[in-house]
């Protein structure tokens, strides 16, 4: 038992990686799905075991291949990435049953097994980024997840998916290049690729090399901002989310950008923040400014979108703004709010994209005007959309409120009154774009086509319901969301110089 326990960090990556290879050998969609389901359901237990261990006894360090860090690759798990691992693997597991019918419906039979293989590869990449303590290893995993994501998007039923995937490929590669240049700078400065080691050595570099440190910081910030779709580097995201297969969109929206955000937090608070006085740099204000722009501009654009997936995609850009806002605030309440919104937004947005995916499965459309009155025909799906939508708005009683509460407290702790109003102002815009949809889907008369639809089968309904209940549950019991986020924020801020 303890032999397994000591191997947990590598299992987190190895299980989906091997799963991806095995699934690639399968022909039939059903057997590919079955294997993927098994793999997906193992991972939350691995992540959960690590989270409990980290909360009880502190960070875990795992030397890959027995080569001791900092020379060998180290996998290092603390509260922050245990939370991210738990989130990514749990979301993957919960929404997996939905894929069975949705993927079979939207993709050619011949592509199904490939889809699941690419998904597992993507999952392995995302979990790898979160688990590793090595800057270059993180780059490798980031690219594994990105490359497989391009394939997932390109498999979308609409031909425009190809163009979207290509667009993302270009932008994502630029981002990866910036990131790896930044890592290169750090390597030249410190001679190390181990994150803990970089932080320690960076603190001792001479003042004459300050410019080089800042350049590394800038490259990494831009590179990761592209990956996490920080406004105005979000241009790839709306198309990618709109044309990817419904299920892939739900998965990516909940996890992919979140992992890039995690990596940014890691660099700011565990590497640069430990080595230099990052709070004296204007970068926090810079991030806050861009976050506010994201929250307002992207929300505003979402109001005018007629395609539901695209509307939710713009909403994602805005909600990512909330998360980066917390990072920019960099105080206890603010950072807690940002980190907890990683979890809360993942749950709510996955629920919303699944609901839209279910509507597409039944009604073959995600255009708002064609979905008039669908609430009467798909009441459970639309109710789930409604609840998760109110979560986006941040009404009390939903997880979204908790995030906004911490962010607003964080802003006031800094004495930034105006920021509080910008945060709630963005909620107001969210109310407009969510309310607009609710009015059409619930109150309009159904058309002839819509009159024939009904709620999707249980395999699609169950994940949606679980996520919706989670949206409400985590609006009341926040021990495992805000509680963990608060612990992580405390240790991150405590380590700052």
């Amino acid at each position, binding site marked *: 038992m303890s032999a397994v326990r000591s191997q947990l960090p590598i299992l987190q990556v190895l299980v989906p990686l091997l799963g991806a290879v095995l699934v690639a050998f399968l022909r039939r969609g059903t057997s590919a799905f079955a294997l993927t389901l098994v793999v997906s359901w193992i991972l939350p237990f691995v992540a959960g075991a690590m989270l409990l261990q980290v909360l009880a006894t502190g960070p875990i360090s795992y030397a890959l291949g027995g080569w001791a860090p900092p020379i060998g690759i180290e996998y290092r798990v603390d509260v922050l990435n245990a939370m991210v691992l738990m989130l990514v693997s749990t979301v993957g597991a919960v929404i997996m049953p939905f894929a069975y019918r949705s993927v079979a419906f939207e993709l050619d039979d011949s592509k199904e097994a490939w889809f699941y293989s690419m998904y597992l590869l993507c999952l392995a990449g995302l979990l790898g980024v979160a688990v590793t303590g090595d800057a270059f290893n993180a780059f490798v995993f980031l690219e594994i997840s990105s490359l497989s994501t391009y394939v997932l998007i390109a498999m979308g039923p609409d031909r425009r998916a190809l163009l979207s995937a290509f667009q993302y490929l270009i932008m994502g590669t630029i981002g990866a290049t910036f990131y790896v240049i930044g890592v290169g700078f750090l390597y030249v400065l410190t001679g190390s690729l181990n994150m803990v080691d970089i932080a320690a050595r960076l603190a001792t570099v001479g003042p004459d090399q300050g410019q080089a440190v800042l350049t590394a910081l800038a490259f990494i910030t831009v590179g990761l901002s592209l990956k996490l779709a920080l406004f105005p580097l979000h241009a790839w995201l709306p198309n990618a989310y709109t044309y990817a297969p419904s299920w892939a969109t739900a998965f990516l929206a909940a996890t992919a950008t979140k992992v890039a955000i995690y990596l940014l937090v890691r660099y700011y608070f565990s590497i640069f923040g430990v080595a230099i006085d990052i709070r004296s740099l204007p970068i926090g204000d810079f991030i806050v400014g861009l976050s506010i722009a994201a929250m307002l501009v992207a929300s505003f654009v979402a109001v005018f979108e007629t395609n539901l997936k695209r509307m939710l995609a713009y909403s994602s850009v805005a909600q990512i703004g909330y998360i980066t806002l917390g990072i920019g605030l960099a105080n206890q309440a603010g950072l807690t709010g940002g980190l907890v919104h990683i979890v809360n937004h993942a749950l709510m947005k996955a629920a919303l994209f699944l609901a839209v995916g279910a509507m597409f499965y039944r009604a073959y459309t995600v255009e708002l005007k064609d979905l008039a009155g669908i609430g009467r025909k798909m009441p459970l799906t639309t109710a789930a959309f409604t609840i998760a939508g*109110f979560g986006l*708005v*941040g*009404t*009390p*009683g939903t997880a979204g409120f*908790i995030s*906004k*509460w*911490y962010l*607003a*407290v964080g802003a*006031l*702790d800094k004495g930034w*009154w105006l920021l*509080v*109003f910008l945060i*709630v*102002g963005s*909620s*107001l815009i969210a*109310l*407009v774009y969510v*309310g607009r949809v609710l*009015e059409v889907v619930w*109150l309009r008369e159904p058309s002839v086509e819509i009159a024939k639809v009904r709620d999707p089968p249980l395999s699609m309904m169950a994940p949606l319901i679980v996520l919706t209940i989670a949206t409400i549950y985590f*609006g*009341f*019991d*926040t021990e495992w969301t*805000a509680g963990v986020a*608060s612990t992580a924020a405390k240790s991150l801020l405590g380590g700052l110089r």
Partner: protein
Amino acid sequence: MSAVASSEALIVLAILLPFVGALLIPLFRHHPNLRETVTLVTAALLCFVVFSLLEPVLAGARPEVHVLDVAQGLTLAFKVEPLGMLFALVASTLWIVNSIYSIGYMRANKEPRQTGFYVCFAIALGSTIGIAFAKNLFTLFLCYEALTIATYPLVVHNANAEAFRAGRVYLMLLLGTSLVLFLPAIVATWVIAGTLDFTPGGILAGKAGPAVTGILLALFVFGIGKAAVMPLHFWLPAAMVAPTPVSALLHAVAVVKAGVFTLLKVVVLIFGVDTLSALGQSGWLTAVAGATIVIASVVALKQDNLKRRLAYSTVSQLSYIVLGAAILAPISVAGAAIYIAAHAVSKITLFFAAGSIYTASHLTEVSQLDGIGRRMPWTMGAFAIGALGMIGIPPTANFLGKWFILGGAMQTANWLAVSIIIVSTVLNAAYFLPIVYRAFFCAPAAHAHDYGEAPWPIVLALTMTASATILMFVWPDIPFALAKLLSDR
């Protein structure tokens, strides 16, 4: 010990009962009589439960229930104090009467989607009780938003373009103001005071200067959109597209009273009357409330649609309660509390009458009501009593509330408030008495079709509330006792 435990159980029961009712109602959707029985039984049980809390509260107990800690600063907890007790009594009692009325109205007008109507109604009442018993601002805010969302489907019940437009205004103004102004005020209160609990004497005393206190109070006054202080009152006339039982109980009692109740609670138990008066916050609030009272009355004067005239009257009357709070004298706060109850019973009577007229004759405009008092003597008699209440003259309970508010204004030498009350009394008379005059003393139009009184449940309901308006004047013991407890602290 057991008394305490049973009080706690009663609080939980009071909040859960309407929600249980809301779950049971759809089960009987194919049996309208059983379905309405569920509503009536739930309402009666709720009323009984709320009344059994009255005795301990009058005896000085403040039973409370701690449900759970949500996050730092956010606790879900309920506590019964005198003002909340009064509000819960009013809401739960009138729910019974309103349910009787709803049954008559919805059936006579053959309204569609009745099951959904009763479900939303029950949820709205549950949220209202939650607001009444909330122990802290977070719990109140949660129930406040739930009330908005639960009443939205009732506003758009008619499912036509006008209803959708009204629904949009309703949702945007109520949710919008609460998210953009009310929530920041709550966050700021937490950051400044370190607690959100309603506490006698307030929690902000000595913690915030005049400027911050003034901004905070303004955020609360305008953020609590349900209180319909101008210029954020538009949602209330818009909401009149809803079926009349909704206008009657929700938009004359539960929703709007939740607004002024919250405001009163914030003034008394978050800021503290003494703190506000020491910081000189009375003036501008008096002016805002006064402007709302006078302007809304003038607008009401010009409305020909009966329900819209009533709506503007409500806007105006709500600000009496805000004014009672703004005067910042204990006696005027007590007057405001009494006025919450008094205005509730008299305004619901007026709406019942408007719905009764519509059901019997399909008339909606004031100018069509010539001679209607002869065909519908019960309805118009009740209307006349309600109108007297609005004007605030004996023998209606409103007079008592107004008297105390006026007393507070005199005591604090707030002559602006005194003159507002006098002017508005004249205005109230000017827009209500002509209706009564028309109904009883003008000859009906020659081509009028034949109709008589509305169905008996409607007549029964409006007779009950009209009598209550007078009975509360004769026996004002319960509201007096609760209001006195409020100002004692």
